[in-house]
């Protein structure tokens, strides 16, 4: 048993950190966040050249063929750098395709020539597949991330009462921005009118593909949230060391110091949970992996909010300014808290597994 990155995983992660530090410093993040779509094609191409979008795509399909721990390591660095744009959306769509047993578009995604997203939520804003009400390819989807820059969408819909997944080119879809708190990952409303698309899966297969895709996306998101928390912690600690009031660095006052300690505890615990879940996606049974994912997301959703709150508070007035980077992280943290189900949603998912279908003991339990 070894809970820690292997040498090659560590190198991958360090490379990613260097890559984002040089290609996507905060000045770039600010610039891109103020564009219409918060997507920068040049950055995306460079990321693709590193193999990032294809990290878990099979080598035969042009990907790196690595595991979800590697995906988490990348996502953590993107979270730390606050990399804007459609990485997570594209990864989610790719996971749905792969989980449905298809290979369509995967090579393009791995090569960086194709971007994608998943259109799932409707006006009910419910993450429960039962609440997918759209019939066929006519209707409206909401809160679709990065739809404006996606080349195609994986669309969850209902046909003859059954869940179905379609691959639909963005083409002529009517896409409207839904301006929200997070400036670095944009949401859209997408209107379908007898849209054309390829059936990816239906019924139980669709449900399973979707569940898997959301589990993969949620793990990547949890790792990303961990990176964001780490950055907010680093910013706050740095400020606490240098800012002086009453003749001492404010980090010497326990109100501040203990808040920093709590931030560390939450960040490290989120990290443990995210990587455990990433490992479970590759190495545990599907229900165990889903459990690990919900554990990670329920915890990280609360933790990233609390870490963000402390990061703003510790910096006082400075933390509340636009000039300070914290609020960009804070905004994304709020969006991430909600995306793919908030803490209460995932706790209920855990309760369902615990109460309603006793799990086999986990590895050490």
């Amino acid at each position, binding site marked *: 048993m070894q809970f820690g990155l292997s040498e090659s995983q560590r190198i991958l992660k360090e490379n990613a950190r260097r890559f984002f530090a040089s290609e996507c410093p905060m000045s770039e993040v600010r610039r891109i966040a103020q564009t219409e779509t918060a997507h920068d094609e040049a950055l995306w191409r460079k990321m693709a050249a590193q193999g990032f979008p294809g990290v878990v795509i099979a080598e035969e399909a042009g990907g790196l063929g690595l595991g979800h721990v590697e995906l988490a390591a990348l996502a953590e660095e993107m979270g730390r750098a606050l990399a804007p744009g459609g990485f997570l959306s594209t990864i989610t769509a790719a996971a749905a395709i792969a989980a449905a047993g298809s290979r369509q578009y995967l090579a393009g995604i791995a090569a960086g020539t194709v971007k994608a997203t998943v259109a799932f*939520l409707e006006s009910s*804003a419910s993450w429960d597949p039962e609440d997918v009400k759209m019939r066929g390819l006519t209707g409206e989807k*909401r*809160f679709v991330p990065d739809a404006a820059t996606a080349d195609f969408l994986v669309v969850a819909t209902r046909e003859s009462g059954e869940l179905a997944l379609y691959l639909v080119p963005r083409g002529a879809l009517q896409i*409207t*921005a*839904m*301006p*929200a*708190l*997070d400036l670095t990952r944009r949401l859209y*409303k997408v209107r379908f009118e007898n849209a054309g698309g390829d059936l990816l899966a239906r019924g139980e297969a669709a449900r399973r593909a979707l569940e898997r895709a959301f589990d993969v996306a949620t793990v990547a998101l949890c790792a990303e949230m961990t990176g964001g928390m780490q950055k907010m912690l680093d910013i706050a600690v740095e400020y606490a060391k240098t800012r*002086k*009031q*009453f*003749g*001492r660095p*404010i980090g010497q*006052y*326990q*109100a*501040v110091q203990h808040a920093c300690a709590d931030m560390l505890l939450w960040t490290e615990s989120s990290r443990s949970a995210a990587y455990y879940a990433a490992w479970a996606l590759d190495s545990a049974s599907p229900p165990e992996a889903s459990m690990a994912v919900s554990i990670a997301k329920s915890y990280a959703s609360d933790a990233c*909010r609390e870490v963000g*709150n402390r990061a*703003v*508070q510790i910096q*006082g*007035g400075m*933390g*509340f*300014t*636009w*000039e*300070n980077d*914290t*609020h960009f992280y*804070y*905004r994304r943290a*709020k*969006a991430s808290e*909600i995306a793919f189900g*908030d803490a*209460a949603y995932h706790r209920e998912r855990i309760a369902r597994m615990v109460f309603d279908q006793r799990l086999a003991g986990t590895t050490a339990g």
Partner: protein
Amino acid sequence: MDLNLNPKERAFRDEVRAWLDANAPRDWAARRQAEESLNARFTYLRQWQRKLFDAGWAGISWPVEYGGRGASVIEQMIFLEEMARAQAPPMANVIGLGLVGPTIIAFGSARQKQAYLRKILSAEEIWCQGFSEPNAGSDLAALSTEARREGGYFVVNGHKCWTSYGWVADRCELLVRTDPAAPKHKGLTALLVDMHSPGIEVRGLRQMSGECEFSEIFFRDVRVPVEDVLGEVNDGWRVAIGTLAHERGTFGAALHVTYRRNVNRLVELAREMGRDGDALVRQKLAQCYAEIEIMRFNQMRAFSRIKETGVPGPEGSIQKIFWSELNQRLQQVAMEILGPYGQLAQGAEDAIDGGEWAYGYLRSRGNTIEAGTSEIQRNIIGHFVLGLAKSY
């Protein structure tokens, strides 16, 4: 103990309510959503305050001789609650009415009272408060803006920040260092500064919510007549403490009305979303409801005490902590109930209430920082109320 209004207070309440029913503009909520310039909006608020002043509603608890009504702080509280109830626009001169005016009443010279108080009430002169500096936030006494005496003037140089209404103020209660050699609390002086004086530059300070609610103010050789010293030279700390006690103790007086309205709206939204049967939602909303009421009860107790003692005491920090942290909890509950819709910002077609909730969530982060951080409030309670040794 009698929590009913007495006959005089009830008559006052009825009079305010009737007047507001007849006179309060109904378009304030809509105006806030509208794309109107800050200046235009502020002019509107100034006119509204003038109307209130003319009707005798400005400075409820201020002495009659300076244009006030000479009533008690209880009537003042009732008035603020009625304003909030009627969703009337706020008065323009928030800092002048709540902070500077009471401080001038307590510390000002006869001339200053005559010169400034009435114009605060009529909104003829808008005030701001120049206390915080980049290196003096919580540690206010560390401020470095200095004023040198030159003949009949003090000459001010320095840099203030986080000044509410700085961009529109005519005058400023400015805290400066007049004796650099004295220990840090001892060498300060409060000045009443004309913001139109040469050498003053005001810049907007953009917040995380995107707005520029606060300003930075730069002073370069700004001349202030010595007659505009408030209180005594080098006794500015005592004056500032008086101002801050008002900020903590009475500023939140009517917030429970606003909070209650927000929670009632959430109850309505929860019902519309079919979540009114959800045990979690019910618990959260009930908790909000209870805490808002308790804030109101605390406020009633505090005002009863102020009525007896004449001034807000250090226990006012309880109110400050309560309203600021409660609002953060309320905004979070709103986010939890509204789900993905909560994060939609102004301009989004499907945003609930025009994106007020997303804005309110971000804005609430400032509540525990502005008007004295929660940490400072707890220091005040620890030291000045409970008698523990200073922790800073």
